[in-house]
Structures are given as structure tokens and as C-alpha cells.
């Protein structure tokens, strides 16, 4: 690993890599939620975290403060982030609808019981 990871923290600006590191933590937390939670809503929250981690990367690459003038993605970064946010909101609504329907039919939000499609 390079020296800049922790060396001059507090006196030097952070870079894209630092944002990506935070994004990675959020992403992995989200994945873990999706994998480990039995509650369908927990899984939904995991998805939100994953999207959020990805968003952080878009922002980092688009920011002029992290990569310098003209180096980054420019406006693509924030715009992609915006689309992700908007779609995440839509996705949450749809996923919640699925969860509620599942709950209506099965009296449960335990996704381990949503196994009708397995052979």
C-alpha cells in the first residue's frame, strides 16, 4: 500500500482512494446485509447500502476537489449519482411492494420461506 493511505491524514487532502475505501466498506456492509439478514426488509436495507457505496465512488470520481481540475469524470459523476438516487427510491418502493405482498400471502417477512421457485 502506498504511503498516502494514512500518512498525512489531517494535514493533507484526501483522494479518490479514500472515498473508495469508505464506499467499499458501505458496499460490503450492504452485501453482508443482503446475505445474512433473514428479514426481507433487512435485505432491502442492504441493497440501499450497496447503492450508496457505489454512489460514493461516482461522486469521488466526479469531484474536482479530489482529482484536480479536468481530471475526473466531470459532470458524469454527480449525474450518475443522481440517477442512482432516484432509481434507488423507485427500487425501494417496488421492493417494499414485493415484501408487503409476500407478507400478505405468507404472513412472514422471512425470505428463507420465499422458496416457491426452487425445484
Amino acid at each position, binding site marked *: 500500500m502506498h504511503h498516502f493511505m494514512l500518512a498525512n491524514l489531517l494535514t493533507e487532502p484526501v483522494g479518490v482512494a479514500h472515498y473508495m475505501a469508505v464506499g467499499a466498506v458501505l458496499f460490503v456492509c450492504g452485501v453482508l446485509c443482503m446475505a445474512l439478514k433473514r428479514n426481507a426488509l433487512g435485505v432491502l436495507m442492504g441493497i440501499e447500502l450497496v447503492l450508496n457505496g457505489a454512489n460514493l465512488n461516482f461522486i469521488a470520481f466526479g469531484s474536482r476537489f479530489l482529482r484536480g481540475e479536468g481530471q475526473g469524470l466531470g459532470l458524469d459523476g454527480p449525474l450518475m449519482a443522481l440517477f442512482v438516487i432516484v432509481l434507488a427510491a423507485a427500487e425501494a418502493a417496488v421492493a417494499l411492494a414485493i415484501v408487503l405482498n409476500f407478507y400478505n*400471502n405468507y404472513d412472514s417477512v422471512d425470505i428463507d420461506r420465499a422458496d416457491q421457485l426452487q425445484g
Partner: protein
Amino acid sequence: MVIGVARTDFEKLEVYQLAERLADLTWRIALHWDQMAKATLGGQLIRAADSVGANIAEGCGRGSYGDNRRFAKIARGSLYETKHWLRRAYSRDLLDAGQIEQLRSIIDELAPRLNAYIRSIGRAACNPKTDTTDYGPRTTHMSTLVDDPRVIEFDVRTDEMLVNMGPQHPSTHGVLRLVLRTDGEVVSEVTPHLGYLHRCAEKIGENLTPRQWIPYTDRMDYLAGMNMNLGWSLTVEKLLKYEPPEKGRHLRVIIAEMGRIASHLVGMGAYGLDLGSFSPFLYAFREREKILDLFEEVCGARLTYSYLTVGGATADLPRGWLQKCEAFLEQFEPIIAEYHALLTTNSIFIKRTAGIGVMSPEMAINFGTSGPVLRGSGVDHDLRRDGEEIYTAMYDGYAFEVIVEKDGHYPKDHKYPAVPHEAVLGDCWHRFYVRMLEVVQSIDLVRQAIDRYSTAEGGYGEPRKLTEKLPKGEAYLETESPRGQMGFYLVSDGSSIPWRARARSSSFCNLSVTSDLCRGCLIADIPAIVGSLDIVMGEIDR
């Protein structure tokens, strides 16, 4: 792949197990009934209960989802039929509390599960796996004994909740307790519970002489103590066959109508409070305070007067009182327009009250409601005109029209705000409106009475002695108190102390409509409806 329907075993289905339990339980219950009940109700009940499980099983054995669903629906039909027979059994007193509880718990669990099962067929087929984990009984799903078509079912199913509104609640007017069964904001059932203010007033009445019991009548409808005094006094006078002198008669009209104004002012102000409008409450109390000042001058008390009494009143009106009273009326009358502006014709107020809690005239009569609640439904009945002779004699020669909507309009003796087009006869708005108009009418009556009183000759009446023996016999008299028909019943065995003293309260009957009026409304409508009935718990519990 699709799960083979045929290979699933219905015994593992939880709905089936519940249905079995239900069938066996009904069998055991019906076994102990008498021959008549067995032959009529029992057979039907057991057949219906058995058919629930039978149809589930039969559906499971069929080859297709369509068949299965059809039979599951038949099972649901049978379940509803079972409910019907259970209701009959309940109404014919064939079930005891423990059995009801047992049945209720099974049906409460079975009904939603069966619904879920029907919905899952095709998606889940008959897969017992979807239904084997027992999470225990769910809170409460649907009311077992009350199935109301007005209850709205959403695709997003929510759980029902039992909520205790009261006895400590800002808008239950004292210590009323309402148990609400709600689904979200929608109320499916309201059960009023009474007794939190019970003080054995009637029993006490059997240990005191009639005049000594007067203070206890004050504490029944404590917002209209004068009218309560009057009711009891007239009842005793009816037994005594006593007729007060003319001056006393007009005095009573003045006091009773002033009491009506004071009481309706509270009703109006508190109703504003129920709907979230605080200021009219204080405006109403400001005016009421002036009436209480007048009463204080008359009898020394502001709330529990014990002024009107058997034989007349405890004292004559003080000198100069009539002028003060007239001055008050002069000042008060124009203010009513403000109340109309703040409440009656306020568009939010109309939105909250018009079309809410509509009570048809038949229903109002069937429930025995009275007073403004009855007249708000368009029933032309007022004891001041339609009551017994001994009471109506008091208002003899007075010009007044009963405040009720007749031929599509209210009396036109004054200028009243127009009835909004949203309002339906018998809704909260009309009950409130009737009260407001009665205030104006009472002002008129007081004015007439003041004129008569000041020209009348003779004394104001003579209070009876405490120990005076009552003639043997009984008397019952109803008077028009501000809240409606207030009846007192008195049985005497010839001693000075009544053998029985009973009160028939108007608020009690008026309150009894709540569970019918409130079904299917929103939580916010509960204070609106209960407030429009203008109940006083002291009178209900006595």
C-alpha cells in the same frame, strides 16, 4: 417447476388443523345443548363447521389450482356460515364466556389464514411448507362477531389494534372509556364502558328526604344543575299534587332557560375543543361565567346550586337581578354571530361535522335518544311542549317553536346562518346547530318570562319542610333538560323518605348510539361524534 398438488398432504396444513379444532369444539359444545337447540342450531352449526375442513381437504385432493381455490372458497363460505350459527347461538344464550373465548381465538386465527391460503393457491399451491411454522396467534385480525361491510379492505393488509380511548383522555368528556377496534385510522368497532363516575346517587336518594336529595341531583348533570333540581322538584310536586304559584312558575322558567343557555355554551365550546379549535371554548366560558355570576347572586353557588326545590325555590330573585339578567341577554345575543362565524359556518368545521355520524330519525327514536340529539335527526319532540301537564303548564302561554328541521327548514323566527349543502339531517352538524338555535330560543323565553315574572302577583312558592311526610304512591316525570329527557321516579311508602328514587338519564341513551354511529369512521371522527352527543358522565353514571 410446478409443485404437484396431489402429493401434498392436507393434514399438515395449518388451516386444516384449525378447521379440525373448530369442528371438534363445536361438536363438544353442542353436545350439551337441549333437544330443541340441538335439532335446530346444533345440527346446522356442526354441519357448517365440519364442512370447513372437509372442503379444504377435498380441494387439496383435486388436480388443479382452480378446483382447489374453488373448494377453499367454499370452505370460507362454510366458515362464515359457522360464524352465523355461532352468532345465533350467542344471541340465544347457548354459549358461555369460556366457550366464546375459545371459539373466538380459533376463528380469529382461522379466518385470515384461510384468506391467505386462498390467495396463495396457485402461487403456493397446497404446499404445507408455507404454513407449518407456527408463529402463534396473530394479534387480532377481524372482528369475529361483527363483520361489517363498511370496513374497507386494503391490498396492503394491516393488523387491527385495540385502543383504549379513555377513561383518561382529553376528549371523552370526563371518564368515559371507549374501546376502539381500529385498522389504521379506520375504526371498526367502538364499545363504550361506563361506571367510572358512579357514586350511588340513587341509593343515597332512598335514605334522604326529597329536599335533601336536591344537592345530589345537582351533581348528576353538573353542567345544568338547575334543570336537574327542577326535574326532581317537579316529580316530588307531582306526587304531592302541589302546584306552585304563578310567580314561582315564571321564576323557574327564567332559571331553567338560563341553565339551558349555560349548558349549551359548554356543549358548544367543548365541541370546538373536540375538533381542535380552542378559542371558542374560552369565548363560551366567558359568557357562561356571566350566567354563573347571576346564579351566584341568586343562590350563592356557581355550579351546584340546589336552588329550585320542592315547592318553589329556596329564595326569591334578588332585587335588581332581572335588570342584570336583561343586560346580560342584551350583551350576549349579538355575540352568538361570532360563534357561528368561528364554528357553525366555518368551512373546516363543516368538513369535520357535516355528513359525519348520521343518525336517521328511526334510529334516534329506537335508541331512545332525546333532546338536541333527537331533534338534530329531525324528530319533532320537545317535552316543554309534548311533556306531561304538570311540566308543560310551566311554559303555558309562552311563544316558542320547537327547534327542529321541519319541511326542510328550521324555525324562521330569527335570522340563522344557512344550512350548508354538505350537511345531512341527523349528522353532527345538525345536532350542533340545534343547540345553537336553542340558545337563541332560550334567550327569547327568558325575556318573556322576565316580563311575566315582574307583572305576576303573589309569592314565588314555599319550600316544603324537610320532614314532611310524602303521600303513599309513586310518581314519574320527565322534563326537558338541556341534554334531553331527564326522568325522575319516586316511590313513597308514606314516610318522609322515598322508598325508591331513580333517575332516567338522557345522556345514557344518547351515548348508546356511539357504537353504531362510530362504526367505520376515522379515529378523528370519534371525538366529533361523541362530542356532538354532548354527554355528561355524571348523569350517565349517577
